[in-house]
């Protein structure tokens, strides 16, 4: 294998400057990849996989990062000791990279065409316009001539990642590094992007280094896999071998998380008397888009005629892709947005016609966990302040002197330590922050929690932990959930009822089991097909 290796990494050690001194982030990391081969680096966030890729791309922030030792070679040429200018000439031309979040990775103020053409321009000179349009067409952007001059925010998430790919492939690189390329995308789109990468690899014969935390993605793509944990490689080999006989405890835990997800629901199903907690009828919501100067705006329907009801103690899964209206639904249900039509009744009281007293009760009893654990916690507040905020807003829930104890109790409930109360969100990982968000939602002793993509951005292992946490709380506290997600395996494990949304409408609704067993709507079927592990892998996992 190493003979044909185009990219070779050996003995890499990287450390970071932190408050307490140097901390080693990556140690003794080595891997190689050959032309036409796909190497998957699998690991949770913070395992050092992105750091390694940054070293290869020469985009590590130095300081605070330092490459202490190691070798990175491309076709035998040392990349680390190179003159910065020569080194920069290799990026984009011989090694290219795509990133997790295509929206923030594309420059918002330049048109996408300019950004693609720039690669050609930088490495080859001349106008890259023709090549850019050709590439846009190749990665499946319809009408590339017109869309050449448009800006990143005018594209969907999947299209943006396609644009990133076009940019990366502009100079037909030998190696493509894809850092979590599909994590931020909807399941159906994920699949398309991965297929596109495959196709393009077949066409150009490039090597791909795919970095992911998602076993399903790894299973679809990998020729070989490297598993990283705490900055070290704990396992490597071809995927079926690694999956069927994991040697390292971490690998075993990673594989074990999948069945845990499926089991969570069974544990929670027990007879609670059916009392309707939330009833939604004919709900619709229109948005007015502002017009250009001297022109009128137009109206877009985000929700159309949504009706369902939720019994106390049960969980409703709301499934759909981005743009399906599911987040708007969450905002309307929380009273953050006014609906254009229809009614929402909470505990028999009309939500948008509540007395102030009822409204206060509603805000106490219904809480929300947001999709983005980085954005939904104020970075300048301490964890204690964050957890006490619901109590501080409605001061009659608990006397002030009891707040601190309550906050400590909540932290322990979600598996964190009371010593963390004085910290700020920036000091926690994504999974920990989402636990904090859950703890905050629990502070006011709610009856219903609305989770909007609450686990989508998290690693599979942490997903499983949060889901288990929620399931456990449901049982101990008698909570109800509305669980909004694009990720089918997640709802399958938690929801009693599921509604599937597409373009603002409910296209299918029903019992979880029945819906998974025999999906009626084509869209549901498409969703199901796109998600989850390939069959062979699912089999391997189940047998563990």
């Amino acid at each position, binding site marked *: 294998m190493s003979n044909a290796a185009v990219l070779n990494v050996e003995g890499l050690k990287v450390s970071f400057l932190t408050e307490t001194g140097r901390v080693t982030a990556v140690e003794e990391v080595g891997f190689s990849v050959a032309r036409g081969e796909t190497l998957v680096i699998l690991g949770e966030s913070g395992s050092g996989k992105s750091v390694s890729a940054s070293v290869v791309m020469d985009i590590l922030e130095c300081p605070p990062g330092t490459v202490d030792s190691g070798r990175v070679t491309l076709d035998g040429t040392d990349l680390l000791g190179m003159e910065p*200018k020569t080194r920069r000439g290799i990026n984009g031309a011989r090694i290219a990279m795509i*990133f997790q979040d295509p929206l923030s990775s594309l420059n918002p103020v330049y048109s996408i065409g300019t950004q693609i053409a720039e690669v050609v321009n*930088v490495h080859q000179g001349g106008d890259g316009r023709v090549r850019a349009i050709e590439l846009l067409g190749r990665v499946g952007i319809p009408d590339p001539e017109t869309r050449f001059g448009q800006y990143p925010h005018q594209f969907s998430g999947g299209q943006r990642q396609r644009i990133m790919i076009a940019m990366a492939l502009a100079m037909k690189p030998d190696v493509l590094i894809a850092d979590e390329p599909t994590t931020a995308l909807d399941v159906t789109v994920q699949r398309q992007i991965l297929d596109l990468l495959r196709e393009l690899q077949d066409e150009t014969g490039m090597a791909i280094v795919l970095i992911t935390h998602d076993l399903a993605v790894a299973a679809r793509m990998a020729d070989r896999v490297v598993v990283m944990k705490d900055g070290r490689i704990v396992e490597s080999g071809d995927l079926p071998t690694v999956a069927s006989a994991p040697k390292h405890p971490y690998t075993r835990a990673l594989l074990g998380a999948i069945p845990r997800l499926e089991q969570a629901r069974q544990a929670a199903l027990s007879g609670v008397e059916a009392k309707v907690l939330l009833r939604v009828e004919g709900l619709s919501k229109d948005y007015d888009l502002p017009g*250009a100067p001297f022109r009128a705006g137009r109206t877009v329907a985000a929700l159309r005629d949504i009706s369902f009801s939720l019994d106390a103690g049960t969980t409703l899964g709301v499934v759909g892709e981005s743009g399906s209206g599911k987040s708007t639904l969450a905002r309307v249900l929380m009273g953050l947005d006014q609906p254009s039509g229809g009614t929402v009744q909470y505990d028999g009281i009309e939500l948008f016609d509540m007395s102030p007293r009822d409204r206060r009760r509603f805000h106490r009893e219904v809480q929300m966990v947001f999709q983005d654990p980085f954005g939904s916690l104020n970075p300048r507040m301490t964890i204690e302040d964050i957890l006490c905020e619901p109590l501080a807003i409605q001061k009659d829930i608990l006397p002030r002197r009891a707040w601190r104890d309550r906050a400590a109790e909540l932290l322990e409930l979600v598996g964190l330590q009371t010593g963390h109360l004085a910290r700020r969100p920036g000091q926690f990982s994504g999974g920990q922050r989402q636990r904090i968000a859950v703890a905050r939602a629990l502070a006011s002793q709610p009856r219903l929690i609305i989770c909007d993509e609450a686990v989508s951005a998290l690693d599979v292992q942490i997903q499983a932990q949060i889901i288990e946490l929620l399931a456990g709380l449901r049982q101990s506290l008698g909570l109800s959930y509305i669980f909004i997600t694009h990720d089918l395996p997640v709802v399958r494990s938690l929801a009693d009822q599921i509604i599937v949304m597409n373009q603002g409408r409910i296209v299918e609704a029903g019992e979880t089991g029945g819906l998974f067993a025999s999906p009626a709507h084509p869209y549901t079927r498409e969703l199901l097909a796109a998600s989850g592990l390939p069959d062979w892998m699912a089999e391997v996992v189940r047998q563990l």
Partner: protein
Amino acid sequence: MNLFRRTLLTLFSLVGLFALVFFLSRVTGDPSYLFLPVDASAEARAAFSRAQGFDQPVSIQFFSYLKSILNGDFGTSLRQQRPAMDIALEAFPVTLRLIAVSLSIAFAGALLFGCLAAIRPRGIADRLISLVSLAGASAPDFWVAIMLVLVFSVKLDLLPTSGLGGPAYWVLPVFVLVLRPFGLLGQVVRGAMIQTLSAPFIKTARAKGVAEQRVVFVHALRNAMLPVVTVAGDLTASLLNGAVIVETVFGWPGIGGVMINAILQRDFAVIQATILVTAVAILALNIVIDLAYGWLDPRLRTA
């Protein structure tokens, strides 16, 4: 907000400002003291007020003034005995030229050095640039101006002391006017660039093989421009009627000096005319800045 509505609202501001200035400037004292000799009698002053119409209620004065404006007459300067608008329009281009040149230099310099400072916050370049720019921003302008004349014109005999003329005449006044905007803008650029340079798309650009200068000045800078443009707008507005020190020290007959003299002399027609001219410029500038936001950031074009 669309342009039509924005312009309409701006017109409201303009009318409001105009009326406010008219009414409030008349509480700042009786011009007869200034326009008559020190020993003029009370009767002479009363006669003067009568002749100038100052004895009428202010609201009546205002409406008759509005009426004459509709006829294109913005009043006559008491002191110079000629149309007030002529005086304002003579002086305005001088100020405009001066601040156009100064702010262009300050803006370009702030962009360049602010970026250099932001590349490595707390590095040597950053500290040096921050020191120089803050020193410039907090130095009293008249002190700097006179010091420059004494050093560069008199001691070193390099530049003319003052007055209008060729490029050499521009050096000192422009330098003084550049100091504060440069200091302030430099700090803003630096702050915004530090944030922008840690954005993910900067990594993308580097991964594309874009040279570092281009990463900083093309990819990052345009993203960091919004707060810079806001502050630059504020600075321009403040200089449009506030470049007085430089104008008077260097003998540039600009509108700031005209306005200050008119205020001190209670030459109401000139106050109104100069404020009208500068206000139109400032309000138009605010609209231009709103438009610039859209040009700089396509995401703001529809929203």
